[in-house]
């Protein structure tokens, strides 16, 4: 039996070997001749940018899709799962990034749905309690998942996997929704699992985390393995450049004079219009001309609601929201755009863009007012098309042309287009939720650069994001949304991760439960 080398130099027995896996979709090769191996109890990172083929790879291991060619071997035996149930039976479990929990069902029901032969509900609840205490992940089996925080939801997924004694646990971007403290607790759990012999395939593009957690890493770029390395022996920058295949530019900040207040929000409270949403409670802040305010927080703490309240989709009393000296609190989105406030929501398909309409039409939808694209009550299509083409050129949007439906663009490309659409309207206040979500590193850097450029030109920018590194990079002041409340903004300079973690409310109810060890 072959083996992989551990960090300590010993040899682990091999658990899973991937050899020459290829998977092609019409027009793209998602994976091409990918080979790597995972040892028993090894924490193995799968690294790569969006679209590098990580997700396709793990979906094949989990039996959701079949490879076109190549083989997989699990503990020496051929492994070809035809469906997830088969993979689960053979000891492969997966914690998903999105889309695998049912909000209107309770924790125990959610867990039962991911199991092959679940026991009676009462027995299952008892086992959920037992396992959750053993691994320091407290959970009440009878609670509705829709009422849980993002970190708690992830615990549901992890416990669902652990109840089946997996040999290999696949984790797809598990930390993107957690506070730093919750990440620490998750890592403790993962290390405990690893020491008990469970191998973990860990997908992420957070390189510092991988350096602290993983024994080995396989780096994918455009569907091919470009390198394997021991993360502890490399710097994050080295790994990032392996992922991107180019040297990275750090955005540069042009220091602007802080001007007068451009956006003022005072004591804004609003009930959430979203099912399972978080109401806003007494939000107050100001942003000066040329300032970037970064708002951090774990998903579901009021980010979407704050964006709605700022964009004008959620109205308030007039003087709750002010753009320069205009009270705009009771105005809708169009009037607020006229007053100089543009907003870019997080959800690309359906909120920020109309997916089935062309890029030209989508460009008109928010820019019509500020760019003067309406003449005598008619849309000036020639001018609108010029604007769309301008965005496509300036933001390197890869599309066959401006008449393509928004839906046809990949998430990252559409995001670039939508960011460009808001940033190029010459607004005095720009509000963005998750500017670089799902965008690859190079494009993310260019979006951040243009945010900084707009601020340099004197715009006030509010960036809501769950990526702390991004916020620390672009923002002048920093605040945290926690259960619908906003902390007092503080200067970003000099903030430590620990302080930020505490601002984010620490780890939700977990300090007590996790045995210090």
């Amino acid at each position, binding site marked *: 039996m072959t083996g992989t080398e551990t960090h300590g130099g010993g040899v682990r027995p091999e658990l899973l070997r991937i050899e020459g896996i290829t998977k092609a979709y019409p027009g793209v090769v998602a994976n091409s001749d990918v080979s790597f191996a995972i040892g028993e109890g090894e924490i193995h990172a799968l690294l790569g940018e969006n679209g590098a083929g990580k997700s396709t790879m793990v979906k094949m291991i989990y039996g959701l899709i079949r490879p076109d060619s190549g083989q997989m071997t699990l503990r020496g035996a051929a492994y070809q799962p035809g469906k*997830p149930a088969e993979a689960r039976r053979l000891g492969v479990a997966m914690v998903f990034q999105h*889309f695998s929990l049912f909000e209107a069902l309770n924790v125990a029901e959610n867990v039962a749905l991911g199991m092959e032969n679940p026991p009676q509900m009462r027995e299952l609840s008892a086992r959920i309690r037992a396992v959750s205490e053993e691994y320091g992940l407290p959970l009440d089996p009878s609670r509705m998942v829709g009422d849980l925080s993002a970190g708690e939801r992830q615990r549901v997924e992890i416990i669902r996997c652990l109840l089946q004694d997996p040999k290999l646990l696949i984790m797809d971007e598990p930390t993107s929704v957690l506070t730093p403290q919750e990440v620490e607790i998750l890592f403790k759990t993962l290390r405990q699992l690893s020491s008990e012999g469970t191998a973990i395939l860990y997908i992420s593009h957070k390189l510092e985390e991988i350096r602290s957690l993983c024994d080995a890493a396989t780096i994918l770029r455009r569907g091919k393995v470009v390198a394997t390395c021991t993360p502890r022996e490399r710097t994050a920058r080295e790994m990032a450049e392996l992922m991107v295949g180019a040297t990275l530019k750090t955005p540069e900040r042009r220091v602007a004079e802080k001007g007068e207040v451009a956006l003022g929000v005072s004591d804004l409270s609003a009930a959430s219009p979203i099912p399972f949403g978080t109401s806003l409670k007494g939000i107050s802040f100001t942003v000066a001309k040329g300032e970037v305010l970064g708002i951090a927080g774990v998903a579901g703490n009021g980010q979407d609601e704050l964006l709605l309240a700022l964009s004008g989709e959620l109205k308030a009393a007039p003087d709750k929201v002010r753009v320069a000296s205009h009270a705009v609190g009771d105005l809708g989105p169009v009037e607020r755009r006229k007053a100089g406030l543009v907003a870019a929501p997080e959800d690309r398909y359906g909120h920020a863009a109309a997916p089935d309409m062309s890029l030209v039409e989508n460009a008109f939808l928010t820019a019509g007012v500020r760019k003067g694209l309406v003449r005598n009550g008619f849309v000036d299509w020639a001018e609108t098309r010029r604007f769309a083409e301008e965005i496509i050129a300036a933001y390197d949007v890869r599309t066959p042309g401006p008449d393509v439906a928004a839906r046809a663009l990949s998430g990252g490309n559409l995001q670039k287009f939508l960011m460009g659409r808001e940033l190029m309207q010459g607004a005095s206040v720009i509000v963005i939720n998750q500017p670089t979500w799902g965008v690859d590193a190079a494009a993310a850097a260019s979006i951040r650069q243009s945010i900084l450029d707009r601020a340099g030109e004197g715009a006030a920018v509010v960036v809501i994001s769950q990526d702390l590194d991004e916020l620390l990079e672009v923002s002048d002041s920093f605040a945290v949304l926690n259960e619908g409340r906003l902390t007092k903004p503080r200067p970003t300079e000099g903030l430590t991760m620990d302080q930020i973690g505490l601002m984010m409310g620490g780890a939700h109810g977990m300090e007590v439960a996790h045995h210090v060890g």
Partner: protein
Amino acid sequence: MDFGGINPIILIATLMASAVPILLAALGETVVERSGVLNLGVEGMMIIGALGGFVVAVATGSPFLGFVGGAVAGAALSLIFALLTQVFLANQVATGLALTLFGLGVSSLGGQGYNGIKPPRTGPLLPDALADLPVVGPILFGHDWVVYFSIAMTAVLWWVLKASRVGLIIRAVGESHEAAHALGYKVNRIRLMCIAFGGAMAGMGGAYVSLARVPQWVDGITNGQGWIALAIVVFASWRPWRVMIGAYLFGGITVLQLNLQAAGSQFPVWLLPTLALLALAGDIILREINGKNYSDLRKVFYFFATVNALQLLYLSWGKWIPMPVDYLSMSPYLITILVLVIMSAGRRGTANGAPASLGQNFHASR
């Protein structure tokens, strides 16, 4: 023991039978919608079931085979809907509406030549000795087997949806088809089976109309009951027992108003000011319990409202007017929906929510 020419025991016994078509169809649609599919073709499936059941029963002479035939016919029609929406991903609303029109047309065509024929009778299930017992006899023991079947189905579906694995999977698929797919459930196959089940139930409900309620073949025999079934499912918050309450309420008021029409009933005008006085008293009592204050405007309102109501009560005391037939005819629809709305009001969030994926087609992209 009659009230205005209406015997309450016979009324209850009749409403149980008259609610069967709507109950069966609504229970089937509950399962369909819980799996995330909105099939608006209930009326079409019912009438196809009514014709299918009638034809089979007349041909074989067996009412039981007639009900089987109705269920098969309804399921067959629903499979057209399943094919269009689950395989070809057609819009569910449009397809469902088309299904109703199609069903009405086909049944009208296929029913030519069946007018005026009497189908074999579906007799009571239990021996007459039991049905002859006073009070409980007609209510509990005097029915044909389909009535008991519909009640049993309510209990079974309640248990299946609440506590069984199959029910959990159906709810999961209706709640988030993405998540269900990620866990390895065959979303479209599960939905297809639910649609077929819903079709069979609707078809059986239709067969009950043509074989037991009417019983003969008439064009458009289901007379909009499929639409009521659809409304009941929504207002019953997708729960089998509430569906049953809704169906019985509708059936009961339908029977009652028919009786009232036959009796040429009179409307007690004095009831209106009495109700107004009761409402005022109720409001004051609630305010006292909750410890709320009375604004001056409210006090003025109380004063004038009370004076007016008393005056009207004095003027109308003991007065009856003939009840307009139109009001009676619309009362089942109005009262059923009113009651179910009140039942489903005041509860927010998951407890009352529609299946989150309702009406959305699923296609596994990658």
